[in-house]
């Protein structure tokens, strides 16, 4: 009588296979985790690039230095106006959600902890070598040519060592003819 051969896997085989799979899948999962992190890095870089370029273009549209302050874009951000400079600072969390903050928080170093990205925009017209005074029509009216230096950079606050590093940094100059602005 021929004994019918049993089909299927033995218990030992199944246990060994599951153990091997469990052991190896740890390394395999690491690959997916790394790839997810790299993808997030790429996404952050894309968003940072887009935000920096958008803000530069937005400021390039305005003709007068004083008009910048009225921009809706500056809502919820910190705006500092110095003599010839306008500095805008905006904060974002890890998902690029806007975090409201005040100048007091910034000066007292009491900013919210969930800040991950900082957008800094500096509009500078103070560089004297950028002034090209064309002519003086009369004593009271001067028509200078002005180059505004617009810089937008996004800092990435690294969680590990809390070091501020530039994610993106763009600088451009805007040529405009400003009328009636007194020049030294």
């Amino acid at each position: 009588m021929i004994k019918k051969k049993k089909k299927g896997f033995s218990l030992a085989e199944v246990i060994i296979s599951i153990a091997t799979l469990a052991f190896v899948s740890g390394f395999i999962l690491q690959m997916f985790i790394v790839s997810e992190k790299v993808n997030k890095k790429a996404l952050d870089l894309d968003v940072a690039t887009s935000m920096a370029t958008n803000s530069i273009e937005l400021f390039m549209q305005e003709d007068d230095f004083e008009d910048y302050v009225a921009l809706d874009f500056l809502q919820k951000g910190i705006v500092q106006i110095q003599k010839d400079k306008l500095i805008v600072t905006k904060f974002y969390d890890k998902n690029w959600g806007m975090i409201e903050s005040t100048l007091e928080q910034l000066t007292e170093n009491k900013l919210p902890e969930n800040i991950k990205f900082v957008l800094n925009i500096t509009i500078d017209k103070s560089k004297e070598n950028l002034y090209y005074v064309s002519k003086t029509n009369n004593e009271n009216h001067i028509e200078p040519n002005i180059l505004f230096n617009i810089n937008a950079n996004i800092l990435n606050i690294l969680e590990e060592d809390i070091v501020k590093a530039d994610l993106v940094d763009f600088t451009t100059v805007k040529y405009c003819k400003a009328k009636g602005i007194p020049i030294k």
Partner: protein
Amino acid sequence: MKIMRENEKGATSVLIIFMMIVLVSLGAFSITAANVNYKFSKEVMKHNKVYYDLEQKANIFIMDVDNEIEKSEDQAVDYIKEKKYEQEQVSGIPNAIQILIREKYDINNKNNSLSEILNEVYLYYSTQNLLELKEKYQDSNIVTSLEENDITKEKITAEVILKSEIDVNVNLKLKMRVMPISYDITDDGHRINGEKSEEFSRYKIEEYNEWKLPVEYENGIELWEGLVK
């Protein structure tokens, strides 16, 4: 077939090995795709950087050209105000051109002829002043072309090739044309009055073209962190 049926030991190992190969392949593919994605993002950022770098240089060039032609406009206005067209010789203007200008002056049609003279002098000074930019812009080309020896049909263009410091392979070609100015000039016999007849632009940008030189690859192509030859 019979042999295989007799011995089915290790079948699960084969399945597990197959599964692991699939998973490792997928993982490797995923990492490579993410890495390429990140590389492209960096490329986009670099391209934007180059764009703004070139735009910055272009803005400064436009401003320099505008300053020079604005200076020319002032010189031309002074020329008319001081009635230099009546003189035989004027310092800074070659005699041949001065003769042409004097011929243009029509006493019976003072206002129109003075407007024409203003433009002629303006274009002449523009050419001279723009040549001064050659020192600053080595790759610039100031071109003037005379049509039918008529100074009023003169076409003046300032052309420059700007190079980015971030990526030396990317260039920007900028070509500007000096446009005629429009003044209403009246001469009442005692005094010459001139007003800008309408809002006009002193220059026109004819070409603003960014291009990248073809990249010559070396023997190896950089791939991720390794070098494939």
